[in-house]
């Protein structure tokens, strides 16, 4: 088993001044695993990846890639990695072809091998039309493809990808995830993303970090079950004369055995809509139906939501966002900043794509 561990992190901590970016992060990724690395902005995903790729050193703790320490044997580590940093920072004045050549040379790939590798990489990343273009003229989505291409050019056994899909359009994302599944069979991939759908479609396992700590690590099903709650959507018709009243309905729903919380959703004039959280391992649908029919109300909708990864993600990491908004002006600013960035990114992508067409 131990020889199969490709990425190993043990007690990684990183201190920036008084800010603790990483706090005792430990995990292991085995050969052939595609692992989603999740967390809100600023949770420590990129810091972890930078340590694993030897760009920065941890304040404490050890990290090993294929058994080689990232600090003591950093060249061997870097040789066996393909890394795509966030937002694909490339040399803008080079053409795509020149860049790939450069990456190949640094990795000691000779001319003939380079040609065959470049050909497959260009096919995988869909770069055939862009080969002779300067990178500065490419949209962000295409730059990301080039970043991916350079990470694959030496056919590395381990891929570390920091938000590889953030600038891709839905079609490109689908293609990319498809490809990831294929190569993930006997390679090891650590993939950070905000997009939980991607994790669900490409990874069997996820690691969730929040505030520099690992808060969940395991198969997606296990993580999904972690919340220990089941949610039901209930919609009841508002009869003429406003019966039942809102209070009556809420009281009745809360009174059902096993119901934890009842939350009202805004809806149109004709109905009341509620989310009802119940304990796991207990189906409340029958009880809800009986209650409603006994009172003579009209049930418009009743269904049980399967717990999504997104819910768990929010539950586990909500503290980060709360903290951003809780304190005085400074904390508020931080929260606003991160929102602003997200919007900016979208704008940039749009512009770039418009420029392209």
């Amino acid at each position, binding site marked *: 088993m131990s020889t199969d561990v490709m990425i190993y992190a043990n007690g990684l901590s990183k201190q*920036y001044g008084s800010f603790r970016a990483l706090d005792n992060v430990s995990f292991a990724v085995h050969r052939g695993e595609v692992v989603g690395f999740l967390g809100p902005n600023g949770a420590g995903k990129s810091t972890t990846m*930078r340590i694993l790729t*030897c*760009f*920065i*050193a941890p304040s404490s703790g050890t990290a090993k890639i294929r058994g080689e320490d990232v600090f003591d044997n950093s*060249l*061997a580590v*870097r*040789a*066996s*990695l393909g*890394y795509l*940093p966030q937002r694909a*920072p*490339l*040399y*803008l*004045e*080079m053409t795509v*072809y020149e860049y790939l050549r*450069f*990456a190949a*040379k*640094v*990795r*000691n*790939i000779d001319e003939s*091998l380079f*040609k065959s590798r470049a*050909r*497959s*990489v*260009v*096919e*995988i*990343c*869909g770069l*055939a*039309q*862009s*080969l002779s273009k300067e990178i500065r003229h490419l949209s962000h989505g295409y730059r990301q493809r080039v*970043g991916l291409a*350079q990470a694959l050019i*030496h*056919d*590395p*056994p381990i891929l570390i990808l920091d938000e590889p899909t953030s600038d891709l*359009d839905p*079609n490109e994302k*689908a*293609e990319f995830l498809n*490809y990831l599944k*294929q*190569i993930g069979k*006997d*390679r090891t991939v650590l993939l950070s993303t905000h997009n939980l759908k991607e994790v669900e479609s490409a990874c069997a396992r996820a690691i969730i970090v929040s505030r520099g700590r690992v808060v969940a690590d395991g198969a997606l099903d296990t993580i999904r079950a972690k919340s220990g709650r089941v949610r039901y959507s209930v919609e009841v018709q508002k009869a003429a004369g406003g019966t039942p009243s809102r209070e009556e309905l809420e009281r009745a729903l809360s009174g059902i055995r096993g119901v934890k919380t009842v939350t009202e959703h805004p809806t149109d004039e004709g109905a009341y809509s509620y989310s009802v959280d119940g304990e796991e391992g207990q189906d409340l649908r029958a009880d809800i139906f009986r209650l409603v029919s006994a009172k003579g109300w009209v049930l418009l909708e009743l269904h049980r939501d399967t717990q999504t990864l997104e819910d768990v993600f929010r539950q586990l990491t909500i503290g980060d966002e709360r903290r951003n908004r809780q304190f005085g002006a400074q904390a508020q600013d931080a929260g606003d900043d991160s929102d602003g960035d997200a919007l900016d990114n979208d704008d940039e992508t749009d512009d770039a*794509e418009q420029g*392209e*067409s």
Partner: protein
Amino acid sequence: MSTESIEKTSANHQVMPANAALSELGHEHGEDNRGESAEPESSPTSLALSPQSGATLTRPSSAQMVWTLASREVRASLNSAITYIVIAASLVVVGLYFFYYKGGFWQVDRATMARMFDALPFALCFLTIPLFTMRSLADEKRVGTIELLITMPVKDSEVILGKFLGAFAMVSLQIALLAAYPLVMFSRAPFWHLGELDWSPFWVGMLGLLLLSMAGTAIGVMWSSFTESQILSYFATMLTLVALYAIGSVTIVEFLQGGVGDAISFVSLQSRFEPFARGLIDSRAVIYFFSLTVLSLAVAFRSLESRKWT
């Protein structure tokens, strides 16, 4: 462009590479490719599904690596308009200074290039060296490309050496182009033939310029490694070099005299360069320039390494 983006968004764009664009990868491969493209299912897997190990994970030798990095630097510089502007403007200014400033070359009325070495070191310190070194590490840090570069199997020392040699090559190119002046003026037909030039002092002067530039470039790379701002890097380098040069001026050294004056003329670029301008190769100066280079590059290396800890 629009047809391209339509193709890109169609689901199977990855399996229909344009063979024309692939021609850079070799025509023979282009042919193969057309065959493969016909079978959409097979192509994405053509990157061998079993990861390679061993042979492909080796590194090129350090010398090769430095060469790769340095030549990338040179190509990037040659790709930038500012390079051509600087080189052309310098040549024009040097020409005007040489021939016309205070009567210029004609008034001297001797076949000598000594005049060229009066002002050139200062011009290099003030403009050329800071301009060719300001980008080197500062811009990589600002844009973030340094992260991709350093996470490739490259030693920090190779990065610094590559950056240094790349910038030094550009400065050397600028200096070498200056040799065009005496070649045009004093070589035989078809150019002017203004007399027999004693070439040795000229070449010694050029050697001096190269040595001075070497040290200056290293200082520039060092400043560039401290900051993310090219402008800051430019001014820091320029001020350092101009200060190191100007403190050696005869008036200052004579005014201070004694130990202080000696100390200043020991570290000043101007007093170290002065023998070369007269056609003398001063071994102490050679050692001085090399020491300054090594010291600055060592500091730059430490500064690059410090990213790990901060």
